[in-house]
C-alpha cells in the first residue's frame, strides 16, 4: 500500500504546527522523517494513521492491503504501549481478538511473530519483567501480528540504549527484507534515519514544512554503522538541521 499527504496544515490553538506538508510514500519503501523538537513529527504521524484530523489537507491511501492484513495502518509507539496486566502473548492476542479468527490460527500467529522477534521464551512474561528493548520487540511483534501494509513508527528506539538500538535496527531491517512493508519512521537520530530510510524527509522547525527529501542509495541490508556514504549523507542532514535546531532551542527559551 502507498500513502500520500497533500497540503497538510494543522494548528493547536493559534500555534501553527504543520504548514502545507506534502509527501509521497511509495509501497514497500521506508520514509524517515527527521526534524527539530516540536516541529510536528508526531502530529504528522498521528494524522497518517487516522488518529488525529488535520485542519486542512488530506492523507490518502492507495493500493490494496496484502492478503490476511488485519490492520493496514499499524503503529509502533515510542513508549511501547503494552498493557501491563497482559502477558507478552496476551498483548499480541489483544489485537487479534476482535477479528473472530479461530483459536489455533491466533496461536499460530502469536508463535510466528514471537519467533520472528526472538521472544518465544517470553510467551508468558509480564511487561514489567522485560527490559526496554524486549518491550519494544513485543510491540513490534504485536504490529507484525496484524500483518500491516504500512508501519508507522514514532521514535521506536529512542527510549533504548545504543547497543539495543543497534540490534533492533538490524531486526527491523531483517523484518523488512523478509517482507517489505511501507514505513514511516520518525526519529531524532540521524544515524537511524540513514540506516533505515529509503528516503529521508527533513522538516523545518515549527511550523513544520518539508525542507528537503533526500534519497539514500543502496539496499537496507548492505548499510552498516560507519559506512562512508552514509556518513556523508548524515553530515549533509546535520548541516540542514543544525541551524534549525539552534533556532528551535532559542524559541523554546523565549516561550
Amino acid at each position, binding site marked *: 500500500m502507498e500513502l500520500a499527504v497533500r497540503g497538510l496544515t494543522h494548528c493547536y490553538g493559534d500555534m501553527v504546527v504543520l504548514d502545507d506538508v506534502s509527501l509521497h510514500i511509495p509501497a514497500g519503501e521506508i520514509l524517515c522523517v527527521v526534524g527539530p523538537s516540536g516541529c510536528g513529527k508526531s502530529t504528522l504521524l498521528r494524522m497518517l494513521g487516522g*488518529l488525529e484530523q488535520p485542519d486542512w489537507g488530506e492523507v490518502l491511501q492507495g493500493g490494496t492491503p496484502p492478503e490476511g492484513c488485519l490492520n493496514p495502518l499499524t503503529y509502533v509507539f515510542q*513508549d511501547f*504501549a503494552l*498493557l*501491563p*496486566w497482559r502477558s507478552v502473548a496476551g498483548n499480541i492476542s*489483544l489485537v487479534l*481478538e476482535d477479528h473472530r479468527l479461530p483459536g489455533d490460527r491466533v496461536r499460530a500467529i502469536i508463535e510466528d511473530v514471537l519467533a520472528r522477534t526472538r521472544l518465544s521464551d517470553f510467551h508468558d512474561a*509480564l511487561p514489567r519483567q522485560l527490559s526496554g528493548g524486549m518491550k519494544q520487540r513485543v510491540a513490534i511483534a504485536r504490529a507484525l501480528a*496484524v500483518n500491516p501494509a504500512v508501519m508507522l513508527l514514532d521514535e521506536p528506539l529512542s527510549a533504548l540504549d545504543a547497543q539495543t538500538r543497534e540490534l533492533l535496527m538490524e531486526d527491523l531491517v531483517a523484518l523488512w527484507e523478509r517482507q517489505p512493508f511501507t514505513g514511516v519512521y520518525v526519529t531524532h537520530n540521524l544515524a537511524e534515519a540513514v540506516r533505515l530510510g529509503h528516503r529521508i524527509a527533513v522538516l523545518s522547525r515549527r511550523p513544520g514544512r518539508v525542507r528537503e527529501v533526500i534519497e539514500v542509495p543502496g539496499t537496507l541490508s548492505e548499510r552498516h554503522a560507519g559506512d562512508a556514504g552514509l556518513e556523508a549523507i548524515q553530515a549533509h542532514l546535520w548541516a540542514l538541521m543544525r541551524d534549525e535546531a539552534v533556532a528551535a532551542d532559542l524559541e523554546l527559551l523565549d516561550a
Partner: protein
Amino acid sequence: MPEIRVPFRGGGFRPEARRGTGIAVFLLLLFLIEWGTRTGWISNLTLPRPSDVAATLGDLARSGALWTHLLPSLSRLAVGSVLGISAGIGVGVLIGLFSYIRAGLVPLVAAIFPIPKIALLPLFVIWFGIDEGSKYALIALGTFTPTVVATYGAVDNVDRGLIRMGQSFGLGWWSIVRKIVLPGALPGILSGLRVSLAIGIILLVAAEMLGAEHGIGAYILQAGALYDLERLFAGVVILSCLGVLTSWAIGKIEKRLLVWRG
C-alpha cells in the same frame, strides 16, 4: 585516602509488609487495659475488662444469639453494598467516558456525597418500607457515592496512550472499555471499595439502631440503653472484626487481580 564513609541517605517512603506488627499493637493495648482495670487504675465505669468482654462474646456465640444478630447484619451489608457498589462502578465508568454524563452527574454526586445518609432514613422508610428495604437503600446510597468518585477518578487516570494504541489497532469501543479502561481503572476502584465498605458498615449499624429487632446495631443499642458495657463492647468488637475482615478480603482480591503491578 578518604576515610569518612559516605552516609546512607536512601530508603524509607516505601512501607513493606511487617507480619504480626498489627496484632502485637492490638494485644499490647488489650493487655494494658486488662492490667489497668484489674489494678483499678482504670475504673470499671470507664472501660470494661477485656476478659469480661471476651466472656460475653463467648456466651453470645454459645447461646446462638451471635448468629441471630450477625446474619441479618451481614445480609443487609451484602445486599446493600453490592447494589451500591455495582451501580457506583457503572455510573463512575459512564462519567469517566462520556462528556455529557460527566457534566450532568458530577455536580449531582458532589451534592449527594456530603449528605449524612442516615438523615434520609425516615424518607427511605416511607419509600421502601420499614423492613429490610429501607436499610438496603441506605447502605446502597452510602456506598454508591464514594464508589462513583473513586471509579471516575480511576478511569480518568487510565493511560490515554494505551487507549490510543487500542484505537490504532482498530479495537471496537466495547473492547477498549473492557480490555483497557476497566483493567486500567481496577486498582483505583479497589482502593475506593475499602472506603465504600467502611461507610457501608457505619450506615448498617446506624440503620439498625434506628429500627431493627435483630442485628449488631440493635444489639449495641440495647446494651447501651442498659449501660451494659461488656455487651456494648462485644458488639463493637464484632464491628471491628467486620471492618478488618472486609479490608483483608479486598487486600486478597487486590493481590489476586493486580499481580501485574508487582
